[in-house]
């Protein structure tokens, strides 16, 4: 179990696109994952305000949800996104790190259902939430 979590951590940390966006794995295990994405200029979507692009938040959410599925005790292997919906509650405050927390709240033999929330330093007011379905490889 520990080995699988370790593998999931190393796998996620090595994803080229996640590295490109500067994601940092914080916690992972038992179907829950936390990943940080520090602010950087390349991620800006609105040049007037300096607010991060929604697409970058989507990428963070997708990675975090995938990590939560990979480290779920009933998942035997990798995962792929089936669908992912993001609701953007408010603009992330420019300059602040975004933290995503994903929870794999139900799994079947073939599908994992995941929820995630993205926060900046104002943790009382979420920046975005996500719900998604991911593929599962059930243990034999």
């Amino acid at each position, binding site marked *: 179990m520990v080995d699988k979590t370790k593998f999931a951590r190393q796998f996620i940390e090595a994803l*080229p696109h996640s590295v490109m966006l500067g994601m940092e794995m914080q916690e992972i295990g038992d179907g829950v994952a936390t990943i940080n994405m520090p602010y950087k200029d390349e991620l800006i979507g609105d040049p007037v305000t300096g607010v991060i692009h929604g697409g970058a938040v989507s990428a963070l959410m997708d990675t975090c949800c995938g990590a939560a599925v990979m480290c779920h005790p009933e998942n035997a292997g990798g995962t792929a996104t089936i669908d992912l919906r993001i609701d953007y509650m408010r603009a992330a405050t420019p300059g602040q790190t975004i933290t995503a927390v994903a929870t794999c709240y139900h799994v079947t033999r073939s599908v994992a259902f995941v929820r995630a929330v993205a926060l900046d330093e104002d943790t009382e007011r979420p920046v975005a939430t996500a719900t998604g379905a991911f593929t599962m490889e059930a243990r034999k």
Partner: protein
Amino acid sequence: MSVRKRPEPVQVIKQRRDAALKALAGAVPYIRFLGIEFERRGDELTGILPFRDVLIGNPLLPALHGGATAAFLEVTAVMTLNWSYLWDDLEAGKLDLEGRAPADLPRLPKTVDFTVDYLRTGLPRDAYARARITRAGRRYASVQVEAWQDNKDRLYAQAMGHFVMPAPRD
């Protein structure tokens, strides 16, 4: 009887449209970061995501990162929506975006929600996307996007998003 205005030479029109598109796409750091480009035929836009290793999510397959695909679709949706929102003023010559600083460009639509369906594995190749505005209201808009790689009939992802439009310009 009013005299119809002589049409502008085609090169003048194309130059103005392409300059506006370049100003809009070039102003967003994240679009440049991902390397997304736009091709234009009349008012129709096609987003292009040229493949690069940094877009990979699963190195074992290898496959495009779902997040890169989601971002590509959202960028294409927002650009298409903004383009259509500005089109009439651009065509009428009321709005000139050529050489404008990013901070002086019109405000962008804001994404309310965005749902991506991953239909097939994203291959390590270029991807293309086109968006269709299914509703363009004064305050809210709905947009569908489709993305494909080698074969237009075999979409690898599709998305639906809702947006809040910027306040009218004076």
